[in-house]
């Protein structure tokens, strides 16, 4: 856009974005002093070509731009720098949207997108031509059939009124799955920079249905750069923790992308943890419930649960960051054992905080941690359970700001923890994809089911499927003695938005904002909050939440023993219990995360069933 009246007229059509080119060599270069007032829902977007960061920040500030389109050879580091500078000099809470443009001709190497995944919000595909943008003809959209990413993209390049039928066809094809917006320019111009309002009106009218549909269905469930999932997440931490958390935030994606980090992580998962964990078709269980149930066998991992995927990742991260003292919190002791294990493996000092009451309840795991060389420190404050152990671990970190890394055990805590833990656990869904493809010919199940304490096994199970709308997501919380009994841990039902352990999420609390003590027979689900990703999945309706009582979980656990010869952790039994409550079709493929094995729960099972 270039001319003031023309800008207002286009704005009146309520586009989602409105672009202004800041590139002197372009005939459409925007050189007016200011942009007229337009509705605030329209994102003012600056279009740049290899401009200096100072120049871009200056224009953002001057014109209050909410997004930038980068049309040159800007590197991933450039995008990252731009984000950081924007956070510092412009706004922290309203992050800049970065749209990175890629020009496509007859072919396109999609590997080029990879380094930009973490640093951009959208990709834009334009036709390769003489100029950076605005060449006036389309590329072969079928190329997007091979789009390997789940990042929403803009489709651009020579789109005009004649393309309406093609667009309609395109939106029905697989290639358009992540298409988020259409970007139009030269085909709607009377002259460069002057838009033809009538033509735009006609275009919008013809496409409004498909556009609205698309917008609704390409919702983002991943974390944004500021650490939010929708309205949940963030980093609500005392200043004393800022340097540590910030160091992690700046490094975690970079470190995780390093080839030797990945190689080391993968190798340990394979040789030490025993991955890939099998995807097992549970034939007798399937027969009983007249549907197709597959169990993802995280219980077969070393140390008996999914927790080790995360601790392996984080111990390698801690080493890369030069930390030599490791702290962790634990409830039932599973995460404590998984942390003590990797510390032994790496020869690092390990201190595990555990509520005094849990220490008494979980003696075998306390012994395991000690055998592995960890120091177990009782949390004596508050209610002396998991939430207080987490507080104590955080306090330890405040007191030891330089040499210590805190390995959080679930997809909770301040950003970047929920995202980092999720990415380490994402190996679960990565494997489900190819295993299911191998076994059924289709990598997508109809449903994924996982239990949720803080939400790490669930986040890992869902991660690669979040943006596959045909895959149903079922999240199972612990109802304890019943959701309305006052003894429950069903956070999505009983919780309200609030702040716990550094993140804004749903949590169980009094009206006065004091965090309350949850209850479940399963110590691993006994947390008053839920990871921010899950709060977002609940709020947007992307996931279906179910609550399972102690009794139903225990019975489902015993049933799995009898039907399949597998003794599950009580946490995982909650996920299995949904089949008594919810009907599936005979041909539905339902993948259940069997997050852990039941050895640690034997005493519970013995007492409960008087075995």
């Amino acid at each position, binding site marked *: 856009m270039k001319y003031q009246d023309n800008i207002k007229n286009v704005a009146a059509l309520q586009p989602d974005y409105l672009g202004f080119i800041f590139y002197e060599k372009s005939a459409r270069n925007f050189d007016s002093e200011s942009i007229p007032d337009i509705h605030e829902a329209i994102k003012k977007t600056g279009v740049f070509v290899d401009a200096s960061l100072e120049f871009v920040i200056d224009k953002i500030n001057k014109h209050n731009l909410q997004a930038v389109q980068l049309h040159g050879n800007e590197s991933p580091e450039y995008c990252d720098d731009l984000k950081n500078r924007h956070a510092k000099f412009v706004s*922290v809470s309203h992050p800049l949207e970065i749209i990175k443009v890629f020009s496509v001709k007859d072919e396109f190497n999609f590997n080029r997108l990879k380094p930009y995944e973490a640093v951009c919000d959208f990709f834009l595909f334009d036709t390769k031509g003489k100029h950076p943008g605005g060449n006036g003809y389309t590329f072969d959209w079928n190329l997007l059939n091979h789009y390997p990413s789940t990042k929403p993209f803009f489709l651009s390049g020579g789109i005009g009124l004649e393309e309406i039928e093609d667009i309609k066809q395109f939106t029905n094809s697989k290639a358009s799955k992540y298409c988020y917006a259409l970007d139009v320019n030269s085909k709607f111009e009377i002259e460069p920079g002057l838009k033809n309002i009538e033509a735009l009106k006609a275009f919008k009218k013809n496409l409004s249905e498909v556009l609205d549909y698309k917008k609704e269905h390409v919702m983002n469930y991943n974390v944004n750069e500021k650490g939010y999932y929708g309205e949940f997440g963030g980093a609500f931490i005392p200043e004393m923790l800022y340097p540590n958390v910030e160091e992690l935030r700046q490094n975690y994606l970079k470190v995780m992308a390093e080839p030797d980090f990945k190689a080391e992580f993968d190798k340990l998962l394979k040789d030490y943890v025993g991955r890939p964990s099998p995807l097992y078709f549970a034939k007798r269980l399937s027969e009983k419930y007249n549907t197709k149930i597959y169990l993802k066998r995280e219980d077969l991992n070393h140390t008996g649960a999914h927790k080790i995927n995360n601790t392996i990742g984080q111990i390698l991260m801690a080493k890369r960051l030069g930390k030599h003292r490791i702290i962790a919190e634990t409830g039932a002791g599973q995460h404590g054992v998984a942390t003590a294990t990797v510390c032994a493996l790496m020869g690092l000092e390990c201190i595990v905080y555990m509520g005094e009451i849990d220490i008494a309840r979980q003696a075998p795991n306390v012994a395991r941690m000690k055998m592995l060389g960890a120091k177990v420190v009782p949390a004596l404050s508050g209610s002396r359970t998991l939430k207080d152990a987490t507080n104590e671990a955080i306090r330890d970190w405040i007191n030891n700001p330089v040499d210590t890394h805190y390995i959080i055990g679930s997809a909770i805590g301040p950003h970047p923890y929920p995202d980092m833990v999720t990415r380490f656990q994402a190996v679960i869904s990565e494997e489900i994809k190819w295993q299911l493809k191998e076994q059924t010919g289709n990598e997508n199940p109809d449903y994924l089911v996982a239990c949720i304490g803080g939400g790490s096994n669930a986040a890992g199970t869902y991660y690669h499927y979040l943006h596959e709308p045909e895959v149903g997501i079922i999240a199972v919380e612990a109802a304890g003695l019943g959701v309305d009994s006052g003894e429950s841990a069903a956070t999505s039902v009983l919780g309200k938005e609030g702040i716990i352990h550094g993140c804004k999420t749903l949590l169980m*609390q009094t009206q006065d904002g004091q965090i309350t003590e949850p209850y479940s027979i399963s110590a691993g689900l006994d947390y008053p909050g839920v990871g921010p990703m899950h709060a977002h999945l609940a709020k947007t309706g992307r996931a279906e939440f179910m609550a399972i009582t102690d009794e139903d979980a225990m019975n489902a656990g015993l049933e799995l023993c009898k039907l399949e010869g597998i003794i599950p952790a009580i946490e995982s039994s909650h996920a299995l219990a949904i089949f008594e409550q919810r009907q599936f079709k005979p041909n539905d493929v339902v993948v259940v995360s069997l997050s852990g094995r039941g050895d640690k729960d034997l005493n519970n099972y013995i007492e409960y069933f008087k075995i």
Partner: protein
Amino acid sequence: MNRINKKLNEDKKLLSIYFTAGYPNIDDTVTIIENLEKNGVDMIEIGLPFSDPLADGPTIQASSTAALKNGMTTEVLFEQLKDIRKTVNIPLIIMGYFNPMFQYGVEAFCKKCQEIGIDGLIIPDLPVDVYHEEYQAIFEKYGLINVFLITPQTSDERIHYIDSISNGFIYMVSSASTTGAQSGFGTVQTEYFERIGKMNLNNPQVIGFGISNNETFTQATQYAKGAIIGSAFVKHVTNNGVNSIDTFVNSILN
């Protein structure tokens, strides 16, 4: 002018005391405030107790748990303080964690503070950037000063940013720790105090964490406009109740 700014303009070193509202007994709040003022304390931080006080050590944790058991809530505190300005003139600051304020409604909370005559807030787990983006306008609308913490690990750049957002004083945490963990200052601390002193910040600094007696108070105020005592005072009321506050304050000032 806000009472905090006025106090900071006085030509003296300031003693600020923290106590947990509703502790040792639910109705001690007003008595403690009045006694502190009477004995020459310059500024008071009224602790709004929270179930999960992340930045606090055992002493303040225990007082918070006890205060909540005693029935302290945001409503109760506001009710207790409603006539406080009839008897008390020194600056009053509420110190608490963000979740109870968030549940009360940040704007409603600020409005109530203004009605009562609260001058400022310290919210350790509300980061400066979130405050800046989302809440600063509300705080300013109700004339409240928000006080931010810095620590020995805070970068110069960030200190300047915090200074630019502050409009009262900067709370200088003496060392990387939770409350009540330190005793006495070594060269590491004094070097840090000096470093900050040389930065020529717009806002005066007040040192907190690890100040417990005349010696540490005197040492801290060599480098800063004032000092804050928390855990040591809470311990004192634990052991002596609210009747011998004069003994405690005198032991610090003389």
